[in-house]
């Protein structure tokens, strides 16, 4: 993974010093609430319903065991002993004291981390495939390009004060696990990790969820990667100058792209890019090689696949067998696997992890997996490089601390925002809904029979829980002061190898106590209609929304 050099360390330390001064001036009354708001947001600090919330950047979801231990310490020293994995591969602390935040940021800087630009109307943490560098279907490792974008966008003088927040996602694999179609900019890298300077990039713009969900439009194909930064600069400049600033709900780039049409927007960006000296601004090949070297594969051992051993272990232990089936994914190197450690245990808020769990994951990463850890946008931990003969031991240890649940990709592995329990934006609670659904569908055989099913829950139309791209989406809405839930069906984020698609709203929203029954009806319709082996999504594509509508809203006879 990327290693900070003296430049990077100086940068984050100087940033902490600056923010410490801003915090002191605020506490002395020299900065107003409104002025300080803008400064603290750009250092990751929100003020939520119950307390401040600090969002720590985990650049493109990659962190080391040492960094995870530091996060565990921070959660003990400054919070309540736990953290929350967000849907953008970050970690959030829900209870820090505002005056402690400079010390927390210093503790982060000490392990080469920061919370820079994790909120506010600026370029946010760049996200990517949680299996990057390990996935069997990967053509080129996206992380060097993510790091390039991270550095370029950090404290960019021109683009720190945009009309609205700005999210970039990058993928280099056949299956898009980064959901590039629903980001402000989505980047597909084509090429090979051996020759990063020859990569070609496809650029999508104007995607996003939120109040007005839109899929990004392909505005540039096969751009030589050395122009990635100048082309991004052109997009940012057009957006910064012409994006709406009069209404925050119409300020995202998707609204500008829609107003200009994708062709019109592309023309404007191309005109801007032509006027930039893009040869002078090209990323030097040496820089791409330098960054790529950080992400060279670890020194994998020459191993054989452990099929026979695993076969025996799976026969002996049905729970391990289930976990193998759902939580272990193919690795590009023989003898290794990619492991998802699910945080979705019934009774725990999705994505919440204790400091003990963080320490445990760090120690497994050290013992088995080159000290590397990933955070997925599904709010789980990933250990990307685990030798297959260590899987059983790892699973036993994980299971003992509540991280060995077998549900990756199943209905109970839902994406869920913190909702009305914590977030001041939410219209409705999301955590109790998640828990009720997990309880209703707890039976393994039933879940397994349903197969891959993405259920996503957001507590409001800001869509942090990605409900638009859930196979089943649940959105909390406010109806005259009461919490209701709108159900949508058939969305997906593009990770099944197709272009992403937004779900269709099935009908009028329902009360919280009805949500589980409605989900059960949806599942029943699927079970009645499906062919052998047909997934929920394929079945929905074939039969459409009508049978679901009829079942949910059937008048009592």
């Amino acid at each position, binding site marked *: 993974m990327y290693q900070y050099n003296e*430049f*990077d360390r*100086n*940068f984050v330390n*100087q*940033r902490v*010093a*600056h923010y410490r*001064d*801003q915090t002191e*001036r605020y506490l002395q009354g*020299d*900065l107003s609430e409104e*002025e300080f708001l*803008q*400064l603290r947001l750009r250092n990751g600090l929100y003020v939520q319903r119950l307390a401040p919330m600090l969002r720590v950047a985990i650049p493109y979801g990659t962190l080391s065991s040492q960094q995870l231990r530091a996060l565990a310490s921070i959660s003990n020293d400054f919070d309540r002993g736990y953290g929350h994995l967000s849907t953008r591969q970050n970690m959030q602390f829900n209870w820090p004291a505002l005056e402690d935040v400079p010390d927390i940021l210093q503790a982060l800087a000490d392990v080469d981390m920061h919370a820079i630009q994790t909120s506010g*109307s600026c370029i946010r943490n760049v996200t990517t495939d949680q299996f990057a560098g390990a996935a069997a279907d990967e053509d080129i490792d996206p992380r060097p390009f993510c790091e*390039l974008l991270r*550095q*370029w966008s*950090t*404290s*960019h*003088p*021109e*683009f*720190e*004060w*945009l*009309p609205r927040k700005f999210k970039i996602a990058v993928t280099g694999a056949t299956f898009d696990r980064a959901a590039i179609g629903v980001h402000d900019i989505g980047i597909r890298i084509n090429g090979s990790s051996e020759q990063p300077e020859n990569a070609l990039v496809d650029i999508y713009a104007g995607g996003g969820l939120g109040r007005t969900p839109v899929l990004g439009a392909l505005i540039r194909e096969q751009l030589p990667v050395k122009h990635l*930064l100048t082309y991004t600069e052109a997009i940012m*400049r057009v957006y*910064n*100058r012409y994006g709406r*600033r009069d209404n925050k709900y119409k300020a995202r780039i998707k609204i500008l792209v829609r107003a200009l049409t994708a062709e019109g927007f592309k023309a404007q960006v191309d005109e801007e890019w032509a*006027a930039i000296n893009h040869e002078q*601004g090209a*990323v*030097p090949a*040496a*820089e791409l*090689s*330098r960054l790529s070297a950080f992400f060279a594969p670890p020194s994998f051992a020459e191993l054989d696949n452990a099929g026979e051993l695993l076969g025996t272990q799976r026969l002996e232990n049905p729970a391990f067998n289930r976990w193998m089936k759902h939580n272990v994914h193919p690795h590009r190197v023989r003898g290794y696997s990619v492991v998802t450690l699910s945080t979705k245990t019934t009774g725990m808020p999705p994505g919440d992890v204790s400091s003990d769990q963080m320490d445990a994951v760090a120690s497994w990463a050290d013992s088995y997996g080159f000290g590397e850890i990933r955070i997925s946008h599904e709010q789980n931990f990933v250990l990307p490089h685990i030798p297959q003969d260590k899987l059983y031991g790892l699973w036993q240890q994980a299971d003992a601390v509540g991280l060995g649940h077998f549900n990756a990709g199943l209905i109970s592995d839902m994406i869920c925002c913190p909702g009305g329990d914590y977030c001041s934006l939410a219209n409705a609670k999301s955590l109790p809904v998640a828990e009720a659904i997990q309880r209703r569908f707890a039976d393994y055989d039933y879940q397994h029979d349903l197969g891959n099913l993405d259920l996503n829950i957001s507590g409001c139309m800001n869509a942090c829980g990605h409900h638009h791209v859930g196979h089943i989406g649940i959105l909390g809405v406010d109806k005259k002061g009461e919490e209701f839930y709108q159900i949508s069906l058939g969305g997906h984020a593009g990770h099944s190898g197709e272009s992403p698609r937004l779900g269709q709203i099935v009908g009028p929203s329902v009360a919280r106590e009805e949500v589980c029954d409605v989900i059960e009806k949806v599942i029943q319709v699927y079970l009645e209609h499906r062919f052998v082996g047909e997934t929920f999504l394929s079945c929905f594509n074939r039969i459409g929304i009508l049978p679901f509508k009829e079942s949910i809203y059937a008048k009592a006879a």
Partner: protein
Amino acid sequence: MPRLLKKIHGDWQICDVAEISWKTQEEWRAGSALQVSVDAEPAPGWLDASSIAIEFPAMTDGRGLSLAVLLRNRLGYSGELVARGSVHQDIAHFLARCGFDVIELPDEERLETALRWIDPHTGYYQPSVISRESALNNAS
């Protein structure tokens, strides 16, 4: 006599300057001082201004930053570039790196804060209007 933050021979200083009579785009003539809004489209004629000011409607409005970059890098304007209006002391360093060389702030305390943090880092990740140096070019 207004006090403001000004870059003189490469050094930022707080100083007193003579009042400038700013003209809007409609009133403006070559040789006089031009004040534009953040949504103005730069025109080659502006090169004849004695000084250009960009007026920020809010501290969070980044359009003035892009406009400054265009004036410096695209139009080739090398004269005085003034940030006016709702300019904030904690954004002064961004203004400086986008090519402003005069920053107006309402009081002494804000001027001093802006001056203290006008260059908060010893190096930056990206080149800017005022420097070709960046972390990204170090490798080459």
